[in-house]
């Protein structure tokens, strides 16, 4: 339960910290950390407008997407507490909950009949497909290392598995979760959330037709996804046995660090060319693959 609440809290600060980090890096003061949150509150008070070409799918998609993401949060553990839901193989459930949310946003985009949104949906589906192996190979590595298949068990046994090489895995896990989060959340270098150019957008173009209440839900979904990956990162670098209050403060620090890393990455580099993205994403998967092979060797399963 604590994990769930912490993820919710950190999600609300996340976009503000990214924005602020970017502003400071570019020599500006930037908006307050709570500005994105205020924007969403404003959106909640507005009505939604639906295009005549859209149908039921378009109207229910934002709600389903957000609830799917919230379901995914439920399986994330915090410290040595079990997650709200925990069962064997729950990381598969986690991944496909996120995929379900994505699926609905893709078909909602197709539902609008706009040529831009169709292009965005096709790009989003393609890139999500490419990033999926990275996540599963990484989780397989962790299961192999600890011998468990649920998030709660994996992370509570991560540092007590007695394996001295665990530090390598926390670093690889940390790195890969950052990359997966960036790609899943359509940030630089794969996508540019700030652009106004419809032809270059991936995720933003899919939500062009959403307004008001629905748009607020979509924003919150993105924030939550960030916080989810932030907390996965936290779980792979902090041993679960530490003092509870220390854990909470480190959790917040990790989330903040993650947001600042995202902001900095976005300030000092340009975005990928669209046809370089698949290569870039496959690189992330191959790093996961390397980790997987190493764990096979270390656990004497091959050679």
């Amino acid at each position, binding site marked *: 339960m604590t994990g769930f609440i912490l993820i919710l809290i950190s999600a609300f600060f996340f976009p503000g910290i990214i924005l602020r980090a970017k502003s400071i890096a570019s*020599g500006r003061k930037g908006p307050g950390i709570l500005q994105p949150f205020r924007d969403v509150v404003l959106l909640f008070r507005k009505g939604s407008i639906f295009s005549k070409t859209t149908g039921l799918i378009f109207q229910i998609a934002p709600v389903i997407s957000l609830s799917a993401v919230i379901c995914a949060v439920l399986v994330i553990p915090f410290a040595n507490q079990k997650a709200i839901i925990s069962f064997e193989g729950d990381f598969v459930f986690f991944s496909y909950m996120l995929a379900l949310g994505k699926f609905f946003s893709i078909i909602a985009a197709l539902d609008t009949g706009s*040529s831009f949104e*169709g292009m965005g949906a096709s790009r989003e589906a393609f890139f999500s497909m490419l990033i999926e192996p990275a996540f599963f190979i990484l989780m397989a590595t962790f299961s192999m290392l600890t011998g468990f298949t649920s998030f709660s068990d994996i992370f509570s046994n991560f540092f007590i598995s007695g394996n001295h090489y665990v530090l390598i895995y926390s670093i690889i896990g940390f790195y890969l979760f950052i990359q997966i989060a960036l790609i899943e959340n359509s940030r630089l270098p794969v996508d540019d959330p700030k652009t106004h150019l*419809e*032809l*270059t957008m991936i995720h933003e173009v899919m939500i062009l037709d959403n307004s008001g209440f629905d748009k607020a839900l979509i924003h919150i979904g993105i924030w939550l996804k960030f916080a989810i990956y932030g907390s996965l990162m936290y779980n792979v670098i902090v041993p679960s046995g530490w003092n509870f209050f220390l854990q909470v403060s480190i959790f917040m620090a990790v989330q903040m660090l993650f947001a600042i890393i995202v902001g900095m990455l976005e300030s000092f580099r*340009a975005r990928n060319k*669209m046809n*370089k993205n698949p290569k870039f994403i496959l690189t992330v998967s191959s790093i996961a693959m390397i980790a997987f092979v190493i764990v096979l060797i270390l656990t004497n399963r091959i050679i």
Partner: protein
Amino acid sequence: MNQLYSEIFENPFTIGIKEIPVVDYDVFYNNISGMLSDQANHCVAYYGVEVPGYLKLICCIVNDKTHSIRIFSTHLINEKRSVKSLTSACPQLHIFEREIHENFGVEFEGHPWLKPVRYPYNRKSLSALMDNYPFYEIESEELHEVGVGPVHAGVIEPGHFRFICNGEKVLHLEIQLGYQHRGIEKLFIHKKGSLQKCILSESIAGDTSVGHSLAHSQLIDSMGDLEISDSLQIERCIGLELERIAVHIGDTAALCGDIAYQLGQVVCEALRTEIINTTQFWCGNRFGKGLVRPGGSNFPMSDIIADKMLKMLDDAVTRFSEIAGRIYSMPSVLARFEDIGQVTRDQALKTGSVGMAARTCGIGRDLRGSHPFQYFKKLYFNPVINETGDVLARGMLRVKEISESGRIIRELLGFWKEKKKFEHPPVYNYLLKPESFSLSMAEGWRGEICHSAITDENGNIIHYKVKDPSFHNWMALALAVRNQEISDFPVCNKSFNLSYCGNDL
């Protein structure tokens, strides 16, 4: 032997309208197609003037090497307004013929693409509407069409782009403009006030107000026989170069913005502000409106302004070259610019590209060197050229031109300090030469701007023609994105940064 054309070596110039030899259309056709087969020649103006009984066609062709301007003319009698199209022989004339077709209903036989240009209210065929523009269509199950605009997500002008794509790859792009048509050319005739005309010329394209007002003022100077002192000529050139630096830096910022490189964007935006603030310090307007006037100037250069300008140049241009070095050496930026939106030299020549679009394809087409105006006549000038024709070339050309313009301004300010200063107020009560034709060209930051006018027997302007460089270059953009990814279109478009309102007039 009858003369086939008038040849003039001056920019701007005024000649009697009756001095231009009029030939039959067949001779006209052979002349022009022969002339344009030389790569150094390109057409700067080709338009029709409605005269009772016939349509007078005037075509001006300039040569980059011999510095000549040749004027051709022919008459089409009202009964026979169907002639052989020059476009198949010289593709660069396609847009001019489209315009003549739209305005006067001349049928150009063999023209592949006689579509509307800008929908003026007095066009020949009133059934041609924005809504029924005959787009190029393709029937296929695999290909899809993407239409962008005329309302865009960013703060840009209206224009409709229709892509035919195979997945992410663009096979064809058609650009439909005309949404910004304001009837500028007609207004030049209807507005009798001289000041009104100046202000009008400044608003042809908001980002080139110095360029266009300079072209207009030169035209009036030439037609009204106004004397322009050396110091005033220098000041005008400085205004033009300042505008060039400001826009080029702003474009570099926008290019960085399009590829989400934040650092380059914010630094260049800040530097641009410094430049345009100097322009504001000089003439009270950040875009140089009010700076150039016929016969004189309301804002003569002073030592204070000159010193401030030099100081600003030392600071801003140096800082710009620093950030530009950083931008164009960063791998992630280069990956987005290199080999994107390539225009070949051959394509640039065929479309008659001018200005930056030509200079990035290895064509040294720059009026400051080939047809010098104002103080450029006395200045050594060598155009800056890049060869590759891609987005990177257009970006790098801006960097080079900025440092070149910085050098020119410093040099001009040096000359200015030595010159005797005459403070002329602008001349608004000029008398234009009667029954004359005048042409004035200036190299704005985007490329050559060409204004031309015809007066009646009382010296009133009865025809005014404006040609913005964008008029040629839009076609180059359409060719540049072929076989590129559709997601690279915005950065291609930004690298050309063509004017919508300059094209639509």
